[in-house]
């Protein structure tokens, strides 16, 4: 595997990894790892470093909804212009253009169902190009970004085998 791919794989699992340790693990020098990361940041291959949080365990109320949006694409601009008008709202955490029965998947986080409903009714649905919205609320998150929430893994292997 290319060194870049290996660095990305490691960072994707743990963006706080110690670079000296990562360098040892990949068999290269620490400056080499640091330079590759800096270059990938410049090239927007690495677009940011997030923390994966299980909000259910905090006292903060949060709801997540997935909205299927149908739109009318605009002449010369296709989907991108209307997408931009939608994703600029900071409530929206992710947005994808889809193949199939609708156009956009919009993932939104809000303080309450009411605030999300308000957003859809007042901001999203009234947009000229938007034909329809179907809002699905997330009831429980099991797994996000490859991490299973609430998983405690016990090592059940026999302690010594030859």
């Amino acid at each position: 595997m290319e060194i870049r791919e290996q660095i990305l794989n490691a960072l994707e699992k743990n963006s706080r990894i110690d670079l000296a340790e990562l360098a040892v693990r990949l068999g290269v020098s620490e400056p080499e790892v640091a330079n590759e990361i800096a270059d990938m940041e410049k090239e927007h291959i690495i677009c940011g470093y997030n923390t994966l949080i299980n909000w259910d365990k905090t006292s903060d109320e949060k709801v997540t909804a997935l909205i299927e949006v149908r739109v009318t694409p605009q002449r010369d601009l296709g989907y991108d212009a209307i997408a931009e008008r939608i994703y600029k709202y900071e409530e929206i955490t992710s947005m994808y253009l889809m193949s199939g029965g609708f156009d956009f998947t919009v993932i939104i986080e809000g303080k309450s169902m009411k605030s999300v409903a308000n957003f859809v009714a007042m901001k999203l649905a009234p947009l000229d190009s938007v034909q329809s919205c179907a809002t699905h609320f997330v009831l429980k998150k099991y797994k996000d970004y490859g991490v299973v929430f609430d998983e405690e893994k016990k090592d059940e292997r026999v302690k010594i085998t030859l």
Partner: protein
Amino acid sequence: MRKMLSDKITSIQPSGIRKFFDIVNDMPDAISLGVGEPDFDTPWNVREEGIYALEQGKTFYTSNAGLMPLREEICNYLARKYNLNYEPKKQVLVTIGGSEAIDIGLRCLVDPGDEVLIPEPCYVSYLPCAVMADAKPVPIELKEENSFKLTPEELEAAITDKTKVLIMPFPNNPTGAVMTKEDLLKLVPIIIKHDLAVISDEIYSELTYTGTRHYSIAEFEGMKERTIVINGFSKAFAMTGWRLGYACGPEKIISQMTKLHQFSIMCAPTNSQFAAVEAMRNCDRDVAGMVDAYNQRRRFMLSEFEKMGLPCFTPEGAFYIFPSIKKFGMSSDEFATRLLKEQKLAVVPGTAFGASGEGHVRISYAYSIENLKKGLERIQAFIDTL
């Protein structure tokens, strides 16, 4: 009452590690770097296939030699990976792990008094299996200065007119040594000159870190007809508990092994066989991911032992590292026992794998980096007291 047990079975020493096991088991708070199996789960698609086979009621015996689709996949796999070409109908036997193949392979090859060459340190079953087959096990002590490889000189020196079988345990447990194409080529003329049979235990073949692929001794001119290649699913696919391995070789040998397998085992677990077909077909990516993780841990462990000042042979295969503890003036048994008692960390004394393992301990890196760090801290704390 008359003597109940055979002299043969009572003559076999229980694995040297037995009493050590007992101490470990009495210490629930001990942590371990002593396992010989992957820390990864079997890839989900393989487990799913096993579940599906159960749902479909595929709970019958298979043919003695194993499911034909599995034998075909094994042949495809060996051809694709290691340039080995076998005929699924006649040259493949699916076994209960590689261990059964070692046992019945030896029993099919030797007569009483035949000598079996066993390069040590190595996995613990060759010697007792040779004894139970009435052969005489002859250890060859591999040396660290030769990177724990078997050299042509060592092989030649160990051969007598009674030598029948050479065991080739590479990539090696516990040292992590591998034999390159060039290393193997030097042994081939000697093996052929003395007309030896070879049992090549290649269970760690997928787990090599040299940058080149694993080579099997059976690949070389004149070797296929005298070699049993043993491999399996445990290590590469993290399938130890499924108990599934295989032996490939000349029809003459495989048919006899199949006969013995039929009488003692019947067939390998059907459910595992169905799951294994999926492993052979669709797991290249999973295996590559695991190899990559092991390799990162291997580099990490080497660097940590270097920082600790523990001299360490650079392993190029399997998932073990075999540092030297000679400078502390203790036997490996004493070192491991004290490390366990004083720091509650279990590692395996090198002598569990043969006399030539003295002065070393085997440390497994089939653990997450986080757990390796915890173990390393305890080793550091222990050697600080010495």
